[in-house]
């Protein structure tokens, strides 16, 4: 170790994994439906895509990705709910790994709901 910059580089690299081990009540939450229906419809690649995208962008300290059970709209799986503190919960349906980047960028970062992916947008 020859410089502080070197130490910081290691710190930044290792930090994402540690952020995952802290309870952060103010974090935005991404809940991926992982009941039998969700898994059958392909929820796991979606869950992993969210995890990767958020880690790639270094957002692990402000966004938590977690699983949830079946919320009862099995025909729309994979279902993903996004909860940002102080805002209304948004439900995305028929999610795919390809749609994930846009939800993270537009909704979680820039606070614009991706209406066309939501349950309202889909059923129209």
């Amino acid at each position, binding site marked *: *170790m*020859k*410089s*502080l910059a070197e*130490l910081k580089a*290691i*710190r930044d*690299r*290792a*930090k*994402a*994994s*540690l952020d*995952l*081990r*802290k*309870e952060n*009540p103010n974090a935005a939450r991404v809940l*991926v*439906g*992982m*009941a*039998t229906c969700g*898994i059958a419809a392909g929820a*796991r690649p979606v*869950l*992993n895509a*969210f*995890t*990767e995208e958020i*880690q790639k962008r270094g957002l692990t300290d402000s966004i*938590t*990705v*977690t*699983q*949830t*059970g079946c919320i009862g709209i099995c025909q729309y799986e994979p279902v993903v709910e996004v909860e940002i503190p102080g805002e209304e919960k948004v439900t995305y349906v028929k999610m795919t790994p390809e749609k994930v980047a846009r939800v993270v960028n537009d909704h979680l970062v820039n606070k614009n709901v991706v209406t066309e992916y939501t349950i309202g947008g889909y059923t129209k």
Partner: protein
Amino acid sequence: MYRSNVLVCGGTGCTSSNSLKIVDKLKEELKAKGLDKEVNVITTGCFGLCALGPIMVVYPEGSFYSMVKVEDIPEIVEEHLLKGRIVTRLLYQETVEEDTIKSLNKTAFYAKQKRVALRNCGVIDPEKIDDYIAQDGYAALGKVLTEMTPEEVIQTILDSGLRGRGGAGFPTGLKWKFAAANDADQKYVCCNADEGDPGAFMDRSVLEGDPHAVLEAMAIAGYAIGASQGYIYVRAEYPIAVKRLQIAIDQAHEYGLLGEDIFGTGFNFDIKLRLGAGAFVCGEETSLMTSIEGKRGEPRPRPPFPAVKGLYRKPTILNNVETYANIAQIILKGADWFASMGTEKSKGTKVFALGGKINHTGLVEIPMGTTLREIVFEIGGGIPNGKKFKAAQTGGPSGGCIPEEHLDVPIDYDNLLAIGSMMGSGGLIVMDEDNCMVDVAKFFLEFTVDESCGKCTPCRIGTKRLLEMLEKITNGQGTMEMIDEMEELCYYIKANSLCGLGQTAPNPVLSTLRYFKDEYISHIVDKKCPAAVCKNLLEFSIDKDKCIGCGMCARKCPASAIAVTDYTAPGKKKPAYAIDTEKCVKCGACMDTCKFKAISKG
């Protein structure tokens, strides 16, 4: 990258209840389900709630599973880690409310704690230096080497008000200042990890859960006093701690955080491990250094103090593990931050190891000034089986017993001394109405008699004579004069012993004499042990009207001391039994066997 982290406690407590088998099973199940690339299994240090081990926490949900069994793992993997359904049944039930799951930080055990020394225990993988660095590890070392002078470092530690956590409470900054002021071609930084008080295990937990924190602090101390060599004296009975320390030292070397020219500043510092062979006296500073030198661990007179002539007769500082665990935080967050916690003369937090008659056996870290009542009844969850609190013993064999009347005293170094006990390293043993205080004093005296190194007479012979008197009292052969004789002998031992072991050895006797003299008097005058502990003063008897004559007790009795009588109680079909007190060995087996509560002791 992983989406979920499963933390399994790998401290000594949970390891002894098979937590490592849980780790293996978890890995196996995750692989079978194809989740091994998504879920990360981490073996951490101690979470503190040892009573509920093995402990396993799943993040990001923060679900706290307690008393986990290997058989539970397939269900947790299938339900929680695959399908996202937390297995509520297996959670620590205090976190479960009607529909929601309470954060662990809001439970009674954790809510009042403030974790500074233990901040990384149960969070990081102690065998991964990257985990420690992610928690700002080694940033404090970087800061002192690049931005601060040694004087500034010492001043910061002085301003923080940090006092030695090993027991005596000497200001850490002052120790460093003295050692820095002495010129020498070589100086040493030592770490006292020879935790020997019965019931204390906070140092072990720090070493097992966050070993780098100690290494970093020792390097900072080395810079402050001008030393390039450190020694950690750790007891060989802590194999997990020893293993993780060695891993940590090797990793720090690999990253160049120990060794030569650290951070390119020209500062060199290295650390070696020395294993103690388990002598209690080697926790005393001069004995410890003598032992590191390869000699028999015996104390030497002070002065000269270690800051002048310590290890190999060179200026040396010796700090305890928990003291070191605070250093990096003080450097990073500032002396004011640290001094804002605690009481006027005792700053910061203190780790206590809760043991004895208490529900939440384990490790707690609380701000100085917290009352014993809060520790025992709120954080510790009170006394099991509805028994009544009698006393709390702090400071191990050097400390004393604190009775109920002092439960509301804010705990700090000075207040504990004022009520006849001491902080010690932080063992806190809770006693209830079933503990005999004379027996407790005898227990600690037996320990010090065993552990006295024998170098000085007051300690070697004084403690032995003291123990003999205690034995007489608990055997029913005591006299009232003995109380005065013991007291006089106690003060003599304290005043004349060479080292801390002897100087504090009489404390358990003095403090029980101070608060529980009536129990001594019962033993001497009434020949009775009020708590029914001292065997020679006990008598077992059968209530012949309650006895149904089943004969279970007679069959259990190892001394054949129970025989049937010719008395049959009204309403009973068989004759009652009776105990021959001459033959009785007072093992209590009959009492445990009797389903009709017909046998009593007293």
